[in-house]
């Protein structure tokens, strides 16, 4: 859409990409359920499910290459995010952590896949959904493990702290557990994807605009494209990292709920 508008705006002033470029119109009529991000979310679920169901189907002791590929991802989440953080109880949380990691990873990578090129989590709604689910999960785990009274009491009055400190600490703890954690975990994911996509758009649309300008500008344009390509690789790193961080933080929050004292 941007490309088209930039093309039609030949010779005109360069309009930098903005948050408008993340609001994609419905593909079919006025139906808000037919936007590109929504299709991408659906596509990601199908891709991940098909890949991992087929990979895990045989569960052979000696894995095929396909099963090995699936196990590689699962083993990474299982060991680095599950076992090491959650200890012996980690298996209960593996479906959630693994869904979270693969879901975020694939949707993020959509941002650099040719023809798709849209990181779904640059739409904050999806990031909010996952943040809220993580919020519910870690509080639920904490309450179930320690009992409501002890869990709430430990948040409000952290044990082993001198009483006057509670004046400062209690509001901070409340804010941490109720607002900061779900909000930051969502915003971190969203902001990284949003900024990354914006950056790529600036270099690639900018390069395109330069190419349509005067001869001097045309010569500069390849540098903008080259930088755009370099940033694409950088984005891939960020996309993987953000999937990891979101899952890692979720695991840490759950671990906090599982621990008797946090």
């Amino acid at each position, binding site marked *: 859409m941007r490309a088209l508008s930039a093309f039609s705006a030949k010779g005109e002033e360069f309009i930098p990409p*903005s*948050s*408008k470029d*993340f*609001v994609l*119109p419905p593909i079919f009529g006025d139906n*808000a*359920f037919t*936007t590109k*991000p*929504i299709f991408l*979310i*659906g596509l*990601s*679920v199908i891709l*991940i*499910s098909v890949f*991992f*169901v087929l*990979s*895990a*189907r045989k*569960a*052979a*002791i000696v*894995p095929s290459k396909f*099963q090995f590929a*699936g*196990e590689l991802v*699962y083993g990474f989440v*299982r060991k680095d995010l599950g076992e090491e953080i959650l200890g012996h109880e980690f*298996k209960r949380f*593996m*479906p*959630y952590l*693994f*869904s979270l990691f*693969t*879901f975020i990873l694939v949707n993020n990578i959509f941002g650099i896949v040719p023809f798709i090129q849209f990181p779904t989590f*640059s*739409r*904050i*709604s*999806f990031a*909010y*959904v*996952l943040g809220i*689910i993580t919020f519910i999960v870690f509080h639920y785990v904490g309450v179930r493990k320690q009992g409501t009274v002890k869990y709430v009491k430990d948040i409000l009055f952290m044990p082993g702290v001198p009483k006057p400190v509670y004046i400062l600490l209690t509001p901070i703890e409340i804010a941490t557990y109720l607002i900061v954690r779900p909000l930051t975990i969502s*915003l971190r994911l*969203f902001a990284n994807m*949003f900024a990354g996509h914006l950056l790529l758009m600036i270099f690639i649309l900018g390069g395109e605009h330069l190419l349509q300008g005067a001869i001097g500008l045309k010569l500069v344009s390849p540098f903008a494209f080259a930088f755009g390509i370099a940033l694409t690789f950088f984005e891939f790193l960020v996309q993987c990292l953000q999937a990891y961080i979101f899952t890692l933080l979720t695991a840490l929050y759950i671990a906090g709920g599982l621990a008797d004292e946090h």
Partner: protein
Amino acid sequence: MNSFIELAAGGAPNPLLPHTAEIIVGSIAFLLLFLVMRSKVVPMFEKAYTERTAAIEGGIAKAEIAQAEAKAALEQYSAQLASAQAESAEMREKAREQGALIAEEIRAKALEDAARITAAAHASIEAERAQAVTSLRNEVGALAVELASKIVGEALDDQARQSRIVDRFIEDLEKSK
């Protein structure tokens, strides 16, 4: 939907505001993925892990048992070998003793035999000598008689000379004894 209206109005939409349709679809999509992972993927991977662990641990246990068995067999064989060696050494020792004993017996017997044979030889030589002496005596006697008769027959006339001859003869005989 709000954001579309804002876009139409020309203002930049606030990217932090959630979008209803996306919230709904996002929740459903993630829930579906979670259900698939929980029912079809994670249990299967965990099953593979468990079975693999069991297979590896079973293999290790089997190897340990085999090793223990091999070690026991080795010990048994070494023990057997040691006892066999001791036994053979003992047998060798016994054989040597017996050999020495037999040699000693044989030597004693040989000495005895030699003594006996020597004694027999001495006896037979003695007997032969005695026999020779006896026969010699007889022959000497006969010769003496013959000589005497010859002498007697030749010169009986000379009584005195005859008695001298006989005396001398006997004297000689006695001297030669």
